[in-house]
């Protein structure tokens, strides 16, 4: 089990890590999610031993690692730009960690073959690094990190250099691969889809602090903080006044900031009596999203713009009314 407590790293005046506390259970996959510059790479470097801590400590199974140099920690770290050894072929790259463990040549070759097969690169042993595509290089880097069977595998934006479709495909692969071997993982990314797909738990990092940590569903439904909600792509963060007053009406949540998810809205058919609309407004913009439409609704009172997800078509200028599902909104701490 990895335990980080009170970890702080400052670069000049900027605190890249600000009193970070984090626990990762053995076999657990924790995704660190955050915008660039939030300190998530620094956290990985600190755990790996590449970045000394100003204060705080990193423990593995209760044992303080501060005196243990990088190469004795038995952790794996995969860099964003892969950092493959350009002067060695694929097999030699993957075998590097095994050679450091003084594994004998025959078992080394076997292990290299097995790991390459595991990442879907069977037979790539003799390829030169310069000839690899982005996706292949990423898999070689992963194989290189996995080969020595590290106690903890850290992935720093492992899919960062790939284009969108490749990314989604490899996110899936990575997820089932990591789950399959049951390894303990710290996975850093700025993409919440990737974090939600891969992580058992997700830690959202902002300005050197962990703003929210929990299962993907917990965080999505209840982001706790406005910045977290916005980072996850929740557009409708509103300030709720006394008695649930919002610019366009009332919401059944306590006073303070709150998030209303875009899928909380259901359109009210005026011809059917019974449903009491909670909000009414004019459509300012419509975007077709395949299985749904995304509307920008300008509310009647308050002139507030809401993002509304609606399965039914609409046109700019339409006047529409909606009810809001209370289960799909959450109060935030300020």
């Amino acid at each position, binding site marked *: 089990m990895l335990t980080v407590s009170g970890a702080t790293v400052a670069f000049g005046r900027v605190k890249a890590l600000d009193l970070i506390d984090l626990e990762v259970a053995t076999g657990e996959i924790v995704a660190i999610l955050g915008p660039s510059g939030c300190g998530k790479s620094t956290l990985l470097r600190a755990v*790996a031993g*590449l970045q000394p801590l100003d204060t705080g400590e990193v423990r593995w199974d209760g044992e303080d690692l501060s005196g243990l*140099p*990088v*190469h*004795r*920690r*038995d*952790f*794996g*770290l995969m*860099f964003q*730009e892969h*950092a*493959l*050894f*350009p*002067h*060695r*072929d694929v097999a*030699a790259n993957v075998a*590097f*960690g095994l050679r*450091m*463990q003084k594994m004998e040549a025959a078992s080394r070759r076997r292990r290299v073959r097995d790991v390459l097969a595991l990442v879907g690169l069977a037979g790539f042993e003799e390829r*030169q690094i310069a000839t690899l595509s982005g996706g292949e290089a990423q898999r070689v880097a992963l194989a*290189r*990190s996995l080969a*020595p069977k590290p106690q903890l595998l850290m992935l720093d934006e492992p899919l960062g250099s790939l284009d969108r479709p490749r990314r989604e495909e490899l996110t899936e692969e990575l997820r089932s691969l990591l789950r399959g071997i049951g390894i303990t993982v710290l996975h850093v990314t700025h993409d919440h889809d990737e974090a939600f797909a891969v992580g058992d738990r997700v830690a959202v990092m902002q300005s050197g602090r962990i703003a929210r940590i929990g299962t993907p569903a917990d965080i999505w439904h209840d982001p706790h903080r406005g910045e977290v909600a916005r980072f996850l792509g929740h557009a409708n963060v509103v300030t709720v006044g006394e008695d649930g007053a919002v610019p366009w009406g009332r919401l059944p949540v306590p006073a303070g900031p709150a998030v209303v998810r875009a899928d909380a809205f259901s359109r009210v058919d005026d011809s059917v009596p019974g449903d009491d609309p909670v909000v009414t407004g004019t459509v300012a913009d419509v975007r077709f999203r395949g299985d749904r439409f995304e509307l920008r609704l300008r509310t009647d009172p308050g002139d507030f713009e809401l993002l509304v997800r609606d399965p039914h078509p609409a046109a700019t200028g339409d006047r529409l009314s909606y009810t809001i599902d209370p289960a799909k909104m959450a109060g935030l701490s300020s």
Partner: protein
Amino acid sequence: MRRLARAVILVLPALAVGGFMALFFVWPIGGVIARGLGGSGPAAVLGDVLGSESHRSVIWFTVWQAAVSTALTVAVALPAAGAMARLQFRGQRIVRALSTVPFVLPTVVVAAAFEGLFDRFNLSGGGALTLRHTVWAILLAHVFFNYAVVLRTVGAHWSALDARVEDQARVLGASRLKVFRRVVLPRLAPSIAAASAIVFLFSFTSFGVVLVLGGPTRATIETEIYRYAVTRIDLETAAALAVVQLVAVVALVVVSNALERRRAVAEPAASFANAPRRRGLGLVVNLALMAAILGLPIAVLVERSLAAGRGGGYTLRNYNALADRVNLLPDTALAALRNSLTFAVPATSLALLVGGAATLVVIRSGRRGGRGLGRFFDVGLTLPLGTSAVTVGLGFLLVLNRGPIDIRTSVIIVPIAHAVVGIPFVVRTLVPMLRTVNPRTREAAAVLGASPRRVQREVDLRVAARGLAVGAGFAFAVSLGEFGATSFIPRRPETLTAPLALFRLLGTPGETLRGQAMALAVALMALTAVAVFVMDLWGDSRRGGF
């Protein structure tokens, strides 16, 4: 304990390098300065040198020919650098490799090639146009020699620039010319400045080329030092001129280092690949020009070495004659070639040993925060690169016959002199190569379980192996072609090197001797090119696998 070990690892090579350089560079140069400033003091010496009309005109000529050589070289090589950086064509790697050949050629061979060129096309006097023994001969040879400096330095920078920025400017309505002037040139400025500084330095301290091609009338500070020291045996004046030369060179080296550092800061690493561009007339013109400037002198040199003379036709007579005794030389030209090869081996080993240790100091102290020592060695070892070989030779002549070692008359003085001239080339090859190692690669190795020492062996040493090979090629070539320092060493059959023999042959009229000179030049050129190529290839083959 570990701190102590680290300190020892840093200090031992520093001491070794420092010791060698102190003995064979600082001390001789100090001797030159002491003799130059003499009893009369710096002001008086400077007054004497600058007060003389002839010295003033020599200094002025040195400066302006170097400036014009630099401008011409940049003007000619810049388009080619652009073509090499931006276009992709078949045989590009070969063209790039071949374009470096003139730079490693011995200066006396370059001079021989141009003498041959002038003979062949009747430009040696008596024809419609005379280039022999004019300033044009010097300028052309300098362009030929330094072309690769601009091509490589600027070309490397150019190909690292994002071409999409230029496309963007075109889309925004800038003409090709405007794009070059407003978008490309400002970004290239640092590397052009750095290359220019180096070309200026080389042209400023150029010796063999000026001595042969300038004839009796054209003299630079460098050739004047030689003339006063060797021909007139006026060591005081020679040393005084050498002091002036030293001051100028130190200033130039400081400027060139400052320019280079600015470039290193300003240039972000390229993480993109430029799309291949359309090839067209531009490429053809550039390649044709390159072939004319670089290829023609070499081709004519080979042709001249085979020419039978007045009767016409071709023969190997000139090559056979290399084994004959000539009155002019204390031994045969073939023996001189053999001597050169014999000297090149210890000279190269010595240069690699000292240069490698120096690199260790520069790199290690740079990484550990001990910047002062690293900077000192980095700049300090560039000095010999600029410090004219002639000044080193003069220094050897002045001091190495007394004190701790009296080796002036010993044969070992030759490889030592060659090593001193070769060391900066080794350092200059190794240091940038090791600096290009991505620190992430070292970290990746550490995370995978490699101890710091192991990281060095697995990552740095592999890169260094290639650098050492390339540096060895350079040092070997430098030793084979060294002329400036060697020309001060007392003349004996055992110390006659091929460049010395070639110089003597070139300086004496007569068709037979001319033919022999051309043959000797070709042989020397072939040896040099082979040395550089073999080392380069060997370095390449060492890259893959374990």
